[in-house]
């Protein structure tokens, strides 16, 4: 190997050349030289490659295979056709899980989307304590999600919880929060928004700072008031980022698990069971890995549509 390396080093040309280099050294044939270069390149690549193969590519293929199998760890898998899918379709929790996941995503979009945008808009106008605001808004993101979930579970507690206490303080009617079938999902959306919006606010802020000031000046000269400036300058200028973040958020919130698992356990009356939670239940409670994979494949297809859209948009903009 040592002798093979020498000519390549001194060559100073890009490592892989389709044409054999002018024969400066005779010690190795171009073929051997290329082979050794490939061997070294793959030496660097191999660790990452194995991990991707084992933990990304193989599971993706396997999800599709197991979705059509009766699979229990320890015994040989059995092909069952589309049985897993029909069985999952007839599970009353299946409809509830999709409904909850979609409602959660939609609510998270409405709340977790408008709030950070308005927040960034206001923050961008402030001339003082800028870094203080950025640190404070991002602080909840750094708190482990499990801790924020447990923290809000305590806030929502009907007895010693802060949420109802605050309502009482303001002389408002108290709420059941996570204990009511109709309010539980919304309560979880609030938790997720609180915990995650820091990143969105920061990205919006950066986008707002990229808007050229002349545009605002020109709009003002044309007599545009502040709302018209937001509508005709700010929003069109940040439209691309808004769309990107919207898609990323849809993809992220459709995979919600920690909040319902920790705070409500899927209840009351299945009102907070999400798809990912159902996948978890099939695998680890019912020990039905076939059903879990069938669900995973369905979720995968839906989310891949959004991912594809996201990638398309980011590509075309380049």
């Amino acid at each position: 190997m040592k002798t093979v390396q020498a000519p390549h080093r001194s060559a100073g040309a890009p490592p892989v050349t389709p044409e054999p280099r002018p024969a400066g050294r005779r010690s190795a044939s171009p073929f051997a030289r290329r082979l050794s270069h490939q061997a070294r390149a793959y030496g660097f690549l191999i660790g990452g490659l194995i991990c991707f193969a084992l933990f990304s590519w193989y599971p993706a293929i396997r999800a599709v295979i197991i979705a059509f199998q009766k699979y229990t760890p320890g015994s040989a898998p059995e092909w069952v056709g589309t049985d897993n899918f029909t069985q999952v379709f007839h599970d009353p929790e299946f409809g509830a899980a999709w409904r909850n996941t979609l409602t959660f995503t939609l609510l998270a979009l409405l709340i977790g989307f408008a709030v950070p945008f308005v927040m960034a808009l206001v923050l961008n106008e402030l001339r003082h304590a800028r870094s203080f605001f950025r640190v404070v808004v991002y602080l909840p993101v750094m708190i482990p999600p499990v801790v924020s979930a447990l923290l809000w579970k305590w806030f929502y507690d009907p007895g010693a919880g802060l949420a109802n206490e605050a309502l009482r303080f303001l002389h408002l009617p108290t709420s059941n929060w996570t204990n009511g079938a109709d309010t539980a999902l919304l309560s979880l959306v609030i938790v997720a928004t609180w915990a995650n919006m820091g990143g969105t606010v920061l990205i919006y802020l950066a986008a707002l700072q990229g808007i050229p000031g002349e545009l605002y000046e020109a709009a003002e000269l044309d007599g545009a008031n502040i709302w018209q400036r937001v509508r005709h300058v700010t929003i069109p200028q940040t439209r691309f980022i808004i769309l990107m973040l919207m898609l990323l958020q849809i993809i992220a919130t459709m995979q919600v698990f920690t909040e319902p698992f920790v705070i409500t356990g899927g209840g009351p009356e299945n009102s907070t069971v999400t798809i990912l939670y159902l996948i978890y239940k099939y695998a680890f409670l019912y020990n039905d890995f076939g059903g879990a994979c069938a669900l995973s494949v369905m979720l995968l297809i839906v989310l891949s549509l959004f991912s594809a859209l996201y990638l398309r948009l980011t590509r075309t903009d380049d």
Partner: protein
Amino acid sequence: MTQIAPPPRQAPPSVAGTAGRKTQGPAVRTLVSPLALGSTRGKILYWTVFCAVVLGFALAFLFPVYWMASGAMKTPDEVVQTPPTLFPESLTFTAYTDAWEQMQLPTHLWNTVVQAAGAWILQLVFCTAAAYALSKLKPAFGKIILGGILATLMVPAQALLVPKYLTVADLPLIHTSLLNDPLGIWLPAVANAFNLYLLKRFFDQIPRDVLEAAEIDGAGKLRTLWSILLPMSRPVLGVVSIFALVAVWQDFLWPLMVFSDTEQQPISVALVQLSQNIPLSVLIAAMVIASIPMVLMFLVFQRHIIAGISAGSTKG
């Protein structure tokens, strides 16, 4: 978990640029004109809004954190009393010491540290090496491999956890199980397309001449990577390190699947498992302790973290 990742394509070049730059000064024209702000009415309005925002932020983001930290200092009776007290009647730290001992927090914290550190180191070693190979050595089928890696960005990670679990429980060919083993966290963490792509994009920016100069001086590939490329890549290595550490520390569902053995569980899983049968004040104290490392890291590196996130959006 549901943390929103910045769009991958723009990040690396701007990370270096924005990391040191201060936030823009007041000279920049924004929505409201400086003229309107200069008037007396404008000034009054500005300071009213400013105070409202400070108050609102403190209430929305700082108060819950204060409530958690102070709740753990209350006595078990005080913490469940209605109406709650704003300040603890007397500062007691028994909840903290109880949490430390009863919930075996040293064990779980240590587990988390081991899992996060291992994932971080392996990710740095393997992702850097792979990114170097893909960016500079251009192996045969490199384009296809990169495409395969980027495709995993499209596939939502959480949706594939069950087949990933089955793979980890019984590795193909060698038939060993990584369950209840830190390797079950470490190795899957290496398959992080986002971080690998960040590194690859950064390496792409480094001109080939620099590396060739080193090779002419007789440096091997490994030497070039170690002494030339890596020292030039400090900013992106910092960003990748933070992403890697935070991801493992915050993760819940994957370690919940991997570690059924209580002794091995990281703090996030242990908190949830133990939350049922522990007094409220002790649980809150444990929550505070679990948050401290990440919050501290954030306060220390806040400038870099915030610059890194913001860089994700601005185009170059």
